[in-house]
Every structure is written in structure tokens, then in C-alpha cells.
């Protein structure tokens, strides 16, 4: 079975990919806070943010089409919010001023730029390395051990569930080809329960094997993460530029 939506570009050889995941998590997190805290209605300042984001995207070598696809996935909710915001400002005077005032357009545009900027930053953070390495970085940043263990197990179980789901889908399509029909809800419900149970049984086998190999709630780490000068430079520099834009522009 093929699951390429995680780690698709994790193996690229770029400056961003070489950075320590801890430095990337902290730097991107701080940058995100500075950017989304821009007041509503601000538009011009996003030119600076987007130039910076574009520079990092170029450095990462992640294809632009992939980044745009990620934006498209988040688009429905963001677009709905951008439409709703000016609508909420409708007043009895709307007949005189109109809905498409400069102020309303700035509000919507500002929200779109802010939200899509955040999506691009997140895409760059996640796609510029192996997902497992990102989780490792989070664990090394003292994430609670419960969450660390849960994330690690969850990461394995996602593939397991996906495998079972694809197997059952293939089996169903080979017997009853065609589109899903709402009238067959009971069949789909039973299939969902079947996928859950079959995957759960496999997950338990995996877990018992882990216990037999000495698992006690903590995952052993192989190889050390190395925090070098370039990581420190990125961690200090990247959010600092965002802070400068936020404060002075």
C-alpha cells in the first residue's frame, strides 16, 4: 500500500531540510505568532511577510504546486471566513455605502493573507524533513511523555488503519462497483466498524510485540539530534525578521 501524503518531500536536500527540527519548530512557531497577530485590515505589511516566506520556500526546494495544493485544501474554510467578515458589518447604511467598500475589502484581504501565510509556513515546517524527525524534535523539546508516546503510536497506527481501509475498499469495489450511496448506510457503518476492529487487533499484536521487546512507555532514540551554529542562527534570525516587520512596518 502506498501512503505518500506524509513525508513526500522529507528527503530533499536543502538548507531548510538540514536544520534541526527543534530549531524549525520554535522558529516557525514564533514567526506564526508575529504574523497572525497583525491587526485586522492590515494589508500592505504582508508584502514583507510573503517575500520572506517565498525566500524560505525557495530555499526549501519544495515544489510550488505542492504548496499551492496545501493552500487549496485549507481554502474552503478560510474563504468562508473572508466572506463572512464583511457580511457581519452590514448596517442599515449598506445601501448607501455598499458591501464592497475599501474597508471591507481590506478586512477580507487581510484575513486571507494572514490565514494562507500561516498555511504556507506550516507546510514548509512539516514538509522540510521526515515527519518522524519532527515528532522526535517535539519530544526533545520536553513535550509531555504521554503525548510523545501517543503521537509515536498514532503515527504507526495511521498506516495500519489506512491499509485496512484500502483493503476493504478494494474488496467492496470488486463486489459492488460504483459510487457510494447514502441508502446503504448500514453497510458502510458495518464496514467502518470492521475496519476499526481489524486494525485494533493488528495494533494490539504490534503493541504486544513491542512489550516483548522491552517497551515500557518510552521510545528509544537512535542517533542524536545535533544543534549546530546554523540552527541557532535560523532560530534567532527567522523570528527576529518577523518581529521587526510586526513592530516597525
Amino acid at each position: 500500500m502506498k501512503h505518500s501524503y506524509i513525508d513526500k518531500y522529507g528527503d530533499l536536500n536543502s538548507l531548510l531540510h538540514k536544520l534541526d527540527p527543534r530549531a524549525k519548530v520554535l522558529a516557525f512557531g514564533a514567526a506564526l505568532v508575529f504574523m497572525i497577530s497583525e491587526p485586522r485590515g492590515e494589508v500592505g505589511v504582508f508584502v514583507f511577510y510573503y517575500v520572506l516566506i517565498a525566500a524560505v520556500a525557495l530555499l526549501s526546494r519544495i515544489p510550488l504546486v505542492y504548496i499551492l495544493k496545501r493552500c487549496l485544501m485549507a481554502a474552503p474554510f478560510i474563504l468562508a471566513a473572508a466572506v463572512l467578515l464583511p457580511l457581519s458589518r452590514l448596517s442599515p447604511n449598506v445601501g448607501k455605502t455598499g458591501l464592497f467598500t475599501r474597508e471591507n475589502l481590506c478586512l477580507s484581504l487581510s484575513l486571507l493573507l494572514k490565514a494562507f501565510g500561516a498555511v504556507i509556513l506550516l507546510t514548509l515546517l512539516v514538509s522540510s524533513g521526515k515527519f518522524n524527525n519532527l515528532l522526535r524534535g517535539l519530544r526533545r523539546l520536553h513535550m509531555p511523555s504521554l503525548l510523545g508516546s501517543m503521537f509515536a503510536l498514532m503515527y504507526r497506527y495511521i498506516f495500519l488503519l489506512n491499509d485496512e481501509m484500502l483493503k476493504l475498499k478494494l474488496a467492496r469495489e470488486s463486489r459492488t462497483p460504483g459510487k457510494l450511496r447514502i441508502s446503504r448506510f448500514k453497510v458502510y457503518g458495518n464496514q467502518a466498524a470492521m475496519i476499526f476492529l481489524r486494525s485494533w487487533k493488528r495494533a494490539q499484536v504490534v503493541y504486544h510485540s513491542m512489550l516483548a521487546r522491552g517497551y515500557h512507555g518510552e521510545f528509544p532514540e537512535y542517533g542524536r539530534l545535533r544543534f549546530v551554529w546554523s540552527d541557532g542562527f535560523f532560530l534567532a534570525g527567522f523570528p527576529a525578521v518577523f518581529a521587526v516587520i510586526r513592530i516597525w512596518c
Partner: protein
Amino acid sequence: MHIADGIVSTEAVLAADAVTVGVLYLFGRKVEVSEVPKMGFMAAALFVASLIHFPMAGTSLHLGLFGLAGIILGLRAFPAVFAALFFQALIFQHGGLLSVGLNTLNMGAGALLGFFIWKLSAVPESLRALAAGFLGIMLPAFLLTMEFQLSGYGRSVFFILSIYLIAAAAEGILTLVVVGFFRKVEPSVLG
């Protein structure tokens, strides 16, 4: 239903993150090592469920399974919902990274409500499953609209509730079927 970064005010998002950390501590403390695989598995199931789309009324809806998570995990469903939303934000950009606390409060509340409904033993099991599935979606949708209204989006956001009515009804029926299947085949899965 996933709030992206930049949609709600930064102050509200950071406050929600702080509250979520507190609730995660409350429901995540004293977890036995043996409980973690079930929590991790349910979180993975919540994540994968969001990939299953159903065609409906000219559009498509994806599953939430928050009520079912509450039925299976009880109070431990809250950390599982957080884990699923965190992964969804990172991998699919469903909801923002900073807004994950706010999204967890909304959808975790649905899972907790599902758990409390499931515990009402005086009510027939099928009705409890149906209500847990239905309200597991409607409560997060209601909280979402309230947060939008408080963030200055006006009353027009209440139309979101009407959209989620269809999704909640579908989820209620699905939860009913799934719980019925578990009861027949593997009752130990149900909390």
C-alpha cells in the same frame, strides 16, 4: 469545523491553548502505560476518519467520530482528540497549528458530551449511541459559531449550524450502526 490560524483573534487563540493545556493535564494525568495504545489508536482512527468523505446534497462531508471516541475512551477521549487535531493541522493543514487548542476545546467537548450521554444507563443503548454521535458534532458546531460571533463575524455565522445538522444526523446514524456492530462482535471495545 477546523479553525485556521488568523481567523480568530490571537488573544482568544492563545487563551484557548492555555485552557486546553489545563484540560489535557486534567484528563491525561495518571494514564496507565497500557491505556496509551488505545488512546493512540483512537486518535489515529479520528485522523483517518477525516479522510473518508460521503457525497451529500451536492457536496461531501467527512466523518468526525467525536461521539464514538467519547463512548470508547471516556474522559481520555480529550487527549486523543488533541492528538488527532494536531496531526491534521500538521499534515493536512486542517486547522491552524496555533488554533489547535481552540479546535480541541470545541471537538473535545463533543467527545466528552458523547461520553456523558453514553453513561446515561437509564436510556436505551441505541438512543444513547445516536445522541452521542449527533451531539458529538452539533456541540462543536455550536461552539464554533459562538466563537465566530464573539470574534466579530456577526449573526450570519449561525447558518453554519444548519449545514452541520446534515453531518450530525449522518454521524448519529453511523455511530448507532458501529456501536451495534461492536455490541454483537466485540463488546469489550465499548467503554
